Protein backbone atom coordinates (compact mmCIF):
# COMPACT_ATOMS: atom_id res chain seq x y z
CA UNK A 1 0.00 0.00 0.00
CA UNK A 2 2.84 2.37 0.95
CA UNK A 3 4.55 1.63 -2.35
CA UNK A 4 1.37 2.47 -4.26
CA UNK A 5 0.98 5.74 -2.40
CA UNK A 6 4.63 6.61 -2.98
CA UNK A 7 4.35 5.78 -6.67
CA UNK A 8 1.19 7.90 -6.99
CA UNK A 9 2.92 10.81 -5.27
CA UNK A 10 5.96 10.57 -7.54
CA UNK A 11 3.75 10.37 -10.64
CA UNK A 12 1.71 13.39 -9.53
CA UNK A 13 4.91 15.37 -8.99
CA UNK A 14 6.24 14.36 -12.40
CA UNK A 15 3.01 15.47 -14.07
CA UNK A 16 3.02 18.75 -12.13
CA UNK A 17 6.59 19.47 -13.22
CA UNK A 18 6.03 18.48 -16.83
CA UNK A 19 2.73 20.40 -16.96
CA UNK A 20 4.68 23.60 -17.39
CA UNK A 21 4.76 24.93 -20.92
CA UNK A 22 8.06 24.50 -22.67
CA UNK A 23 9.89 27.80 -22.44
CA UNK A 24 10.48 29.25 -25.90
CA UNK A 25 14.11 29.72 -26.92
CA UNK A 26 14.94 33.24 -28.07
CA UNK A 27 17.99 34.40 -29.99
CA UNK A 28 19.16 37.79 -31.28
CA UNK A 29 20.32 38.07 -34.90
CA UNK A 30 21.41 41.02 -36.96
CA UNK A 31 18.76 41.33 -39.67
CA UNK A 32 19.47 40.39 -43.27
CA UNK A 33 19.05 44.05 -44.19
CA UNK A 34 21.68 45.16 -41.65
CA UNK A 35 24.15 42.45 -42.73
CA UNK A 36 23.87 43.32 -46.41
CA UNK A 37 23.92 47.10 -45.86
CA UNK A 38 27.06 46.76 -43.75
CA UNK A 39 28.82 44.39 -46.14
CA UNK A 40 28.56 41.23 -44.06
CA UNK A 41 27.38 38.79 -46.70
CA UNK A 42 28.53 36.21 -49.16
CA UNK A 43 27.14 35.76 -52.64
CA UNK A 44 25.99 32.37 -53.78
CA UNK A 45 24.49 31.24 -57.03
CA UNK A 46 21.10 29.71 -56.53
CA UNK A 47 19.12 28.55 -59.54
CA UNK A 48 20.98 30.91 -61.92
CA UNK A 49 20.67 34.03 -59.84
CA UNK A 50 23.04 35.65 -57.39
CA UNK A 51 21.81 35.57 -53.82
CA UNK A 52 23.26 37.53 -50.92
CA UNK A 53 23.46 35.47 -47.77
CA UNK A 54 24.22 37.07 -44.36
CA UNK A 55 27.67 36.29 -42.94
CA UNK A 56 26.84 36.26 -39.23
CA UNK A 57 30.24 35.01 -38.08
CA UNK A 58 32.07 37.77 -39.94
CA UNK A 59 29.68 40.39 -38.56
CA UNK A 60 30.24 39.24 -34.99
CA UNK A 61 34.00 39.08 -35.42
CA UNK A 62 34.36 42.52 -36.97
CA UNK A 63 31.56 44.73 -35.71
CA UNK A 64 31.89 45.85 -32.10
CA UNK A 65 28.59 47.74 -32.17
CA UNK A 66 26.76 44.54 -33.07
CA UNK A 67 28.44 42.68 -30.21
CA UNK A 68 27.51 45.49 -27.85
CA UNK A 69 23.89 45.56 -29.03
CA UNK A 70 23.47 41.79 -28.68
CA UNK A 71 25.15 41.82 -25.26
CA UNK A 72 22.86 44.63 -24.11
CA UNK A 73 19.71 42.85 -25.29
CA UNK A 74 20.90 39.60 -23.66
CA UNK A 75 21.56 41.52 -20.44
CA UNK A 76 18.09 43.10 -20.39
CA UNK A 77 16.40 39.76 -20.95
CA UNK A 78 18.54 38.08 -18.32
CA UNK A 79 17.44 40.80 -15.89
CA UNK A 80 13.87 39.60 -16.46
CA UNK A 81 14.98 36.02 -15.76
CA UNK A 82 14.64 35.02 -19.39
CA UNK A 83 18.17 34.26 -20.65
CA UNK A 84 18.57 34.18 -24.42
CA UNK A 85 20.46 31.74 -26.60
CA UNK A 86 23.83 33.10 -27.67
CA UNK A 87 24.36 33.49 -31.41
CA UNK A 88 28.16 33.30 -31.23
CA UNK A 89 28.11 30.05 -29.27
CA UNK A 90 25.55 28.60 -31.65
CA UNK A 91 27.76 29.43 -34.62
CA UNK A 92 30.52 27.40 -32.99
CA UNK A 93 28.17 24.46 -32.60
CA UNK A 94 27.25 24.71 -36.26
CA UNK A 95 30.87 24.08 -37.27
CA UNK A 96 30.44 20.60 -35.90
CA UNK A 97 27.46 19.91 -38.14
CA UNK A 98 28.71 21.69 -41.22
CA UNK A 99 30.76 18.85 -42.69
CA UNK A 100 27.81 16.49 -42.40
CA UNK A 101 25.48 19.01 -44.03
CA UNK A 102 27.88 19.63 -46.90
CA UNK A 103 28.02 15.93 -47.58
CA UNK A 104 24.24 15.74 -47.72
CA UNK A 105 24.09 18.72 -50.02
CA UNK A 106 26.61 17.34 -52.50
CA UNK A 107 24.75 14.04 -52.62
CA UNK A 108 21.54 15.74 -53.56
CA UNK A 109 23.22 18.15 -55.90
CA UNK A 110 21.75 21.15 -54.09
CA UNK A 111 24.21 23.87 -53.26
CA UNK A 112 21.91 25.78 -50.94
CA UNK A 113 19.25 23.61 -49.41
CA UNK A 114 19.35 25.58 -46.17
CA UNK A 115 19.99 29.25 -45.51
CA UNK A 116 22.43 30.23 -42.73
CA UNK A 117 19.45 31.49 -40.69
CA UNK A 118 17.69 28.12 -41.06
CA UNK A 119 20.89 26.33 -40.05
CA UNK A 120 21.26 28.44 -36.92
CA UNK A 121 17.58 28.08 -36.03
CA UNK A 122 17.88 24.33 -36.43
CA UNK A 123 20.98 23.98 -34.31
CA UNK A 124 19.92 26.50 -31.68
CA UNK A 125 16.27 25.37 -31.90
CA UNK A 126 15.35 29.04 -31.56
CA UNK A 127 11.58 29.40 -31.37
CA UNK A 128 11.66 33.15 -31.59
CA UNK A 129 14.21 35.12 -33.54
CA UNK A 130 14.89 38.68 -32.46
CA UNK A 131 15.97 40.55 -35.58
CA UNK A 132 18.00 43.65 -34.97
CA UNK A 133 18.49 46.49 -37.46
CA UNK A 134 19.89 49.96 -37.02
CA UNK A 135 21.26 52.67 -39.22
CA UNK A 136 22.92 56.00 -38.55
CA UNK A 137 21.40 59.04 -40.22
CA UNK A 138 23.86 61.86 -40.79
CA UNK A 139 22.46 65.38 -40.83
CA UNK A 140 25.47 67.66 -41.13
CA UNK A 141 27.22 67.70 -37.77
CA UNK A 142 24.35 65.94 -36.07
CA UNK A 143 23.42 62.31 -36.39
CA UNK A 144 20.55 60.18 -35.23
CA UNK A 145 19.93 56.48 -35.01
CA UNK A 146 17.05 54.53 -36.53
CA UNK A 147 16.45 51.29 -34.70
CA UNK A 148 14.22 48.27 -35.31
CA UNK A 149 13.90 45.18 -33.15
CA UNK A 150 11.43 42.58 -34.38
CA UNK A 151 10.53 39.22 -32.85
CA UNK A 152 9.57 36.51 -35.31
CA UNK A 153 8.23 33.06 -34.63
CA UNK A 154 10.94 30.87 -36.18
CA UNK A 155 8.48 28.26 -37.44
CA UNK A 156 5.41 30.18 -38.49
CA UNK A 157 7.50 33.13 -39.68
CA UNK A 158 5.04 35.52 -38.06
CA UNK A 159 6.08 38.79 -36.51
CA UNK A 160 5.04 38.61 -32.85
CA UNK A 161 6.47 41.84 -31.43
CA UNK A 162 8.33 44.85 -32.74
CA UNK A 163 9.64 48.23 -31.70
CA UNK A 164 11.12 50.86 -33.96
CA UNK A 165 11.90 54.53 -34.09
CA UNK A 166 14.42 57.24 -34.74
CA UNK A 167 16.10 58.98 -31.84
CA UNK A 168 16.64 62.72 -31.51
CA UNK A 169 19.58 64.11 -33.51
CA UNK A 170 22.69 64.51 -31.42
CA UNK A 171 26.01 66.22 -32.05
CA UNK A 172 28.06 64.62 -29.31
CA UNK A 173 26.78 61.12 -28.68
CA UNK A 174 28.75 58.23 -30.04
CA UNK A 175 26.87 55.65 -32.17
CA UNK A 176 27.43 52.98 -29.51
CA UNK A 177 25.83 55.26 -26.90
CA UNK A 178 22.87 56.06 -29.18
CA UNK A 179 22.43 52.34 -29.87
CA UNK A 180 22.46 51.46 -26.18
CA UNK A 181 19.96 54.23 -25.44
CA UNK A 182 17.67 53.01 -28.23
CA UNK A 183 17.75 49.45 -26.91
CA UNK A 184 17.22 50.35 -23.26
CA UNK A 185 14.42 52.87 -23.84
CA UNK A 186 12.41 50.55 -26.07
CA UNK A 187 13.00 47.28 -24.27
CA UNK A 188 10.06 47.57 -21.83
CA UNK A 189 7.59 48.03 -24.68
CA UNK A 190 9.18 45.19 -26.62
CA UNK A 191 9.09 42.81 -23.68
CA UNK A 192 5.48 43.80 -22.96
CA UNK A 193 4.50 42.90 -26.53
CA UNK A 194 6.32 39.59 -26.20
CA UNK A 195 4.49 38.94 -22.93
CA UNK A 196 1.18 39.60 -24.71
CA UNK A 197 2.18 37.01 -27.28
CA UNK A 198 3.12 34.49 -24.58
CA UNK A 199 -0.22 35.22 -22.86
CA UNK A 200 -2.15 34.59 -26.10
CA UNK A 201 -0.22 31.37 -26.57
CA UNK A 202 -1.13 30.24 -23.07
CA UNK A 203 -4.83 31.09 -23.63
CA UNK A 204 -5.36 30.00 -27.23
CA UNK A 205 -2.82 27.23 -27.45
CA UNK A 206 0.45 26.94 -29.24
CA UNK A 207 0.50 27.86 -32.91
CA UNK A 208 2.23 25.37 -35.13
CA UNK A 209 2.63 24.46 -38.77
CA UNK A 210 1.80 20.93 -39.70
CA UNK A 211 2.48 19.29 -43.07
CA UNK A 212 1.28 15.94 -44.25
CA UNK A 213 3.10 14.29 -47.11
CA UNK A 214 2.90 10.91 -48.81
CA UNK A 215 5.82 8.58 -49.55
CA UNK A 216 5.92 7.95 -53.31
CA UNK A 217 4.93 4.38 -54.24
CA UNK A 218 4.55 3.53 -50.58
CA UNK A 219 4.10 0.02 -49.21
CA UNK A 220 0.65 0.77 -47.80
CA UNK A 221 -0.51 1.94 -51.22
CA UNK A 222 -2.30 4.99 -49.91
CA UNK A 223 -2.48 8.67 -50.70
CA UNK A 224 -4.71 11.44 -49.39
CA UNK A 225 -7.46 10.56 -51.88
CA UNK A 226 -7.67 6.92 -50.79
CA UNK A 227 -11.24 6.18 -49.70
CA UNK A 228 -12.23 4.71 -46.35
CA UNK A 229 -15.96 4.12 -46.41
CA UNK A 230 -17.48 7.21 -47.99
CA UNK A 231 -14.66 9.59 -47.13
CA UNK A 232 -11.26 10.29 -48.57
CA UNK A 233 -8.29 10.14 -46.21
CA UNK A 234 -7.75 13.91 -46.60
CA UNK A 235 -11.30 14.63 -45.35
CA UNK A 236 -10.84 12.24 -42.43
CA UNK A 237 -7.62 14.01 -41.46
CA UNK A 238 -9.38 17.39 -41.65
CA UNK A 239 -12.10 16.12 -39.28
CA UNK A 240 -9.42 14.80 -36.93
CA UNK A 241 -7.79 18.24 -36.98
CA UNK A 242 -11.10 19.90 -36.06
CA UNK A 243 -11.50 17.55 -33.11
CA UNK A 244 -7.97 17.93 -31.82
CA UNK A 245 -7.20 21.64 -32.22
CA UNK A 246 -8.16 24.40 -29.78
CA UNK A 247 -11.57 25.78 -30.82
CA UNK A 248 -11.08 24.11 -34.24
CA UNK A 249 -8.48 26.71 -35.14
CA UNK A 250 -6.48 25.75 -38.19
CA UNK A 251 -6.19 26.70 -41.85
CA UNK A 252 -5.65 24.33 -44.71
CA UNK A 253 -3.35 26.34 -46.90
CA UNK A 254 -2.82 23.78 -49.66
CA UNK A 255 -4.12 20.29 -50.34
CA UNK A 256 -3.52 17.70 -53.02
CA UNK A 257 -3.45 13.91 -53.19
CA UNK A 258 0.11 13.93 -51.84
CA UNK A 259 0.27 16.97 -49.64
CA UNK A 260 -1.69 18.88 -46.99
CA UNK A 261 -0.27 22.08 -45.54
CA UNK A 262 -1.94 23.17 -42.29
CA UNK A 263 -1.06 26.60 -40.95
CA UNK A 264 -2.22 28.60 -37.91
CA UNK A 265 -2.88 25.35 -36.14
CA UNK A 266 -3.62 25.99 -32.48
CA UNK A 267 -2.79 22.93 -30.44
CA UNK A 268 -3.54 22.41 -26.74
CA UNK A 269 -0.60 23.17 -24.47
CA UNK A 270 -0.96 19.84 -22.66
CA UNK A 271 -1.92 16.35 -23.74
CA UNK A 272 -4.36 14.05 -21.90
CA UNK A 273 -1.64 13.19 -19.38
CA UNK A 274 -0.83 16.83 -18.61
CA UNK A 275 2.41 16.68 -20.56
CA UNK A 276 3.36 19.75 -22.60
CA UNK A 277 2.65 19.36 -26.30
CA UNK A 278 4.64 20.56 -29.26
CA UNK A 279 4.26 20.09 -33.00
CA UNK A 280 5.82 16.64 -33.04
CA UNK A 281 3.70 15.26 -30.19
CA UNK A 282 0.62 16.58 -32.01
CA UNK A 283 1.79 14.83 -35.19
CA UNK A 284 2.40 11.63 -33.24
CA UNK A 285 -1.17 11.76 -32.00
CA UNK A 286 -2.41 11.67 -35.60
CA UNK A 287 0.17 8.99 -36.38
CA UNK A 288 -1.38 6.79 -33.68
CA UNK A 289 -4.91 7.46 -34.97
CA UNK A 290 -3.92 6.44 -38.51
CA UNK A 291 -2.25 3.29 -37.24
CA UNK A 292 -5.55 1.99 -35.84
CA UNK A 293 -8.43 0.24 -37.64
CA UNK A 294 -9.79 0.76 -40.24
CA UNK A 295 -6.84 2.74 -41.64
CA UNK A 296 -3.79 0.78 -40.52
CA UNK A 297 -1.53 3.29 -42.23
CA UNK A 298 2.11 3.41 -41.15
CA UNK A 299 3.69 6.88 -41.07
CA UNK A 300 6.80 8.77 -40.08
CA UNK A 301 7.01 11.95 -38.02
CA UNK A 302 9.73 14.46 -38.81
CA UNK A 303 10.29 17.02 -36.08
CA UNK A 304 11.32 20.50 -37.15
CA UNK A 305 11.57 22.17 -33.78
CA UNK A 306 8.79 22.88 -31.31
CA UNK A 307 6.57 24.63 -33.82
CA UNK A 308 6.67 22.55 -36.98
CA UNK A 309 6.25 18.89 -37.82
CA UNK A 310 5.82 16.79 -40.93
CA UNK A 311 3.91 13.52 -41.02
CA UNK A 312 4.81 11.36 -44.00
CA UNK A 313 2.30 8.60 -44.55
CA UNK A 314 2.57 5.27 -46.29
CA UNK A 315 5.73 3.89 -44.68
CA UNK A 316 7.62 4.07 -41.43
Amino acid sequence: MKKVLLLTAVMSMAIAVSAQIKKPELMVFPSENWCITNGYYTEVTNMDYQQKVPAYREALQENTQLKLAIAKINELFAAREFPLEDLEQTLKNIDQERAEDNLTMSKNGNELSETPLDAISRVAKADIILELTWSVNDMGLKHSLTYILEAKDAYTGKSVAAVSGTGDPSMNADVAVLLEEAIVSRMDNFQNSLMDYFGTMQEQGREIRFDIKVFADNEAGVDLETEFGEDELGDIIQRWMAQNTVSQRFSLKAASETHMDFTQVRIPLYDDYGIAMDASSFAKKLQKALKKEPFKIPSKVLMKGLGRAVLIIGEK
Partner: protein
Amino acid sequence: MRKIIFLLLGALVCLPMTAETAKEKKANKDTQAYRYEIECAGNAQPGSYLVKVWSYSKKASVAENQCRKNAVHGVLFKGFGGGNGCIAQRAIVNTPGAEDVNKTYFDQFFSEGGEFMKYASIVAGTTETVKVGKEYKVGNVVNVRKDDLRKAMEHAGIIKSFNAGF
Protein backbone atom coordinates in the same frame (compact mmCIF):
# COMPACT_ATOMS: atom_id res chain seq x y z
CA MET B 1 -15.93 77.46 32.33
CA ARG B 2 -12.36 76.27 32.48
CA LYS B 3 -13.42 73.06 30.78
CA ILE B 4 -15.05 75.01 27.93
CA ILE B 5 -11.92 77.15 27.40
CA PHE B 6 -9.79 74.02 27.47
CA LEU B 7 -12.01 72.32 24.92
CA LEU B 8 -12.01 75.37 22.64
CA LEU B 9 -8.24 75.61 22.82
CA GLY B 10 -7.96 71.92 22.07
CA ALA B 11 -10.28 72.30 19.08
CA LEU B 12 -8.23 75.24 17.79
CA VAL B 13 -5.03 73.20 18.00
CA CYS B 14 -6.61 70.22 16.26
CA LEU B 15 -8.31 72.22 13.48
CA PRO B 16 -5.20 72.82 11.29
CA MET B 17 -4.25 69.15 11.68
CA THR B 18 -7.71 68.07 10.57
CA ALA B 19 -7.60 70.51 7.67
CA GLU B 20 -4.20 69.15 6.65
CA THR B 21 -5.50 65.58 6.73
CA ALA B 22 -8.52 66.62 4.69
CA LYS B 23 -6.27 68.18 2.03
CA GLU B 24 -4.11 65.06 1.96
CA LYS B 25 -7.22 62.91 1.66
CA LYS B 26 -8.41 65.10 -1.20
CA ALA B 27 -4.98 64.77 -2.84
CA ASN B 28 -5.14 60.99 -2.45
CA LYS B 29 -8.60 60.95 -4.03
CA ASP B 30 -7.20 63.02 -6.91
CA THR B 31 -4.48 60.41 -7.37
CA GLN B 32 -7.06 57.61 -7.44
CA ALA B 33 -9.05 59.61 -9.99
CA TYR B 34 -5.88 60.06 -12.09
CA ARG B 35 -6.08 63.84 -11.53
CA TYR B 36 -2.43 64.53 -12.20
CA GLU B 37 -0.29 64.86 -15.26
CA ILE B 38 2.72 62.73 -16.02
CA GLU B 39 5.21 63.17 -18.82
CA CYS B 40 8.67 61.91 -19.62
CA ALA B 41 11.45 64.16 -18.35
CA GLY B 42 14.38 62.61 -20.21
CA ASN B 43 16.49 59.50 -20.20
CA ALA B 44 17.09 58.03 -16.77
CA GLN B 45 19.65 55.58 -15.43
CA PRO B 46 18.98 51.95 -16.46
CA GLY B 47 16.16 50.49 -14.39
CA SER B 48 14.48 53.86 -13.82
CA TYR B 49 12.14 56.32 -15.49
CA LEU B 50 12.58 60.05 -15.15
CA VAL B 51 9.12 61.62 -15.18
CA LYS B 52 7.70 65.04 -14.59
CA VAL B 53 4.53 64.98 -12.53
CA TRP B 54 2.07 67.82 -12.04
CA SER B 55 -0.13 67.50 -8.92
CA TYR B 56 -3.01 69.72 -7.73
CA SER B 57 -3.98 70.92 -4.27
CA LYS B 58 -5.22 74.03 -2.48
CA LYS B 59 -1.99 73.87 -0.53
CA ALA B 60 1.27 73.89 -2.51
CA SER B 61 3.13 71.73 0.03
CA VAL B 62 0.50 68.98 -0.21
CA ALA B 63 0.72 69.00 -4.00
CA GLU B 64 4.50 68.80 -3.80
CA ASN B 65 4.40 65.83 -1.44
CA GLN B 66 1.81 64.17 -3.64
CA CYS B 67 4.11 64.28 -6.68
CA ARG B 68 6.10 61.26 -5.54
CA LYS B 69 2.94 59.23 -4.99
CA ASN B 70 1.51 60.35 -8.32
CA ALA B 71 4.72 59.47 -10.13
CA VAL B 72 4.58 55.89 -8.85
CA HIS B 73 0.82 55.71 -9.53
CA GLY B 74 1.36 57.05 -13.05
CA VAL B 75 4.12 54.58 -13.89
CA LEU B 76 1.98 51.75 -12.50
CA PHE B 77 -1.40 52.56 -14.00
CA LYS B 78 -1.15 55.32 -16.56
CA GLY B 79 2.09 55.11 -18.49
CA PHE B 80 3.29 58.23 -20.24
CA GLY B 81 3.78 59.72 -23.68
CA GLY B 82 7.00 60.32 -25.54
CA GLY B 83 8.95 63.53 -26.03
CA ASN B 84 11.95 65.15 -24.35
CA GLY B 85 14.20 62.62 -26.02
CA CYS B 86 12.36 59.59 -24.72
CA ILE B 87 9.65 57.31 -26.02
CA ALA B 88 6.16 56.50 -24.75
CA GLN B 89 5.94 53.78 -22.12
CA ARG B 90 3.04 51.53 -21.26
CA ALA B 91 1.74 51.26 -17.69
CA ILE B 92 3.36 48.46 -15.69
CA VAL B 93 -0.07 47.23 -14.52
CA ASN B 94 -2.08 47.14 -17.71
CA THR B 95 -4.91 44.83 -16.69
CA PRO B 96 -8.12 46.88 -16.61
CA GLY B 97 -9.52 47.20 -13.08
CA ALA B 98 -6.41 45.79 -11.38
CA GLU B 99 -6.30 48.73 -8.99
CA ASP B 100 -9.86 48.09 -7.79
CA VAL B 101 -9.45 44.33 -7.65
CA ASN B 102 -6.40 44.75 -5.40
CA LYS B 103 -7.74 47.73 -3.45
CA THR B 104 -6.56 46.54 -0.03
CA TYR B 105 -3.03 46.08 -1.32
CA PHE B 106 -2.87 49.44 -3.05
CA ASP B 107 -4.49 51.32 -0.15
CA GLN B 108 -1.65 50.05 2.00
CA PHE B 109 0.94 50.59 -0.73
CA PHE B 110 -0.03 54.24 -1.26
CA SER B 111 -0.73 55.08 2.39
CA GLU B 112 1.27 57.88 4.02
CA GLY B 113 4.82 56.57 4.39
CA GLY B 114 3.77 53.46 2.45
CA GLU B 115 5.86 51.20 0.26
CA PHE B 116 5.54 53.52 -2.76
CA MET B 117 8.16 55.78 -1.17
CA LYS B 118 10.84 53.16 -1.79
CA TYR B 119 10.51 53.53 -5.53
CA ALA B 120 10.50 57.28 -6.12
CA SER B 121 12.71 60.21 -5.34
CA ILE B 122 12.24 63.85 -6.29
CA VAL B 123 15.09 65.36 -8.28
CA ALA B 124 16.28 68.34 -6.24
CA GLY B 125 15.68 71.80 -7.65
CA THR B 126 13.00 70.78 -10.14
CA THR B 127 9.91 72.07 -8.32
CA GLU B 128 7.66 74.40 -10.29
CA THR B 129 4.54 75.96 -8.76
CA VAL B 130 1.71 77.53 -10.73
CA LYS B 131 -1.44 79.05 -9.18
CA VAL B 132 -4.45 77.84 -11.13
CA GLY B 133 -7.68 79.44 -9.89
CA LYS B 134 -8.11 78.51 -6.26
CA GLU B 135 -5.50 75.78 -6.21
CA TYR B 136 -1.85 75.16 -6.92
CA LYS B 137 -0.41 73.06 -9.69
CA VAL B 138 2.98 71.80 -8.59
CA GLY B 139 5.42 70.05 -10.90
CA ASN B 140 8.37 67.93 -9.90
CA VAL B 141 10.79 65.72 -11.76
CA VAL B 142 10.72 62.31 -10.11
CA ASN B 143 13.04 59.35 -10.58
CA VAL B 144 10.96 56.15 -10.44
CA ARG B 145 12.81 52.85 -10.03
CA LYS B 146 10.57 51.01 -12.47
CA ASP B 147 12.44 47.68 -12.53
CA ASP B 148 12.18 47.34 -8.75
CA LEU B 149 8.59 48.53 -8.86
CA ARG B 150 7.72 45.90 -11.46
CA LYS B 151 9.41 43.20 -9.39
CA ALA B 152 7.37 44.29 -6.35
CA MET B 153 4.17 43.99 -8.42
CA GLU B 154 5.23 40.56 -9.66
CA HIS B 155 6.05 39.48 -6.12
CA ALA B 156 2.66 40.69 -4.90
CA GLY B 157 0.95 38.74 -7.69
CA ILE B 158 -0.52 41.89 -9.26
CA ILE B 159 1.19 41.24 -12.58
CA LYS B 160 2.74 38.17 -14.12
CA SER B 161 6.48 37.87 -14.45
CA PHE B 162 8.00 37.72 -17.92
CA ASN B 163 8.52 33.99 -17.77
CA ALA B 164 5.25 33.17 -16.00
CA GLY B 165 3.69 29.93 -17.12
CA PHE B 166 6.91 28.47 -18.52
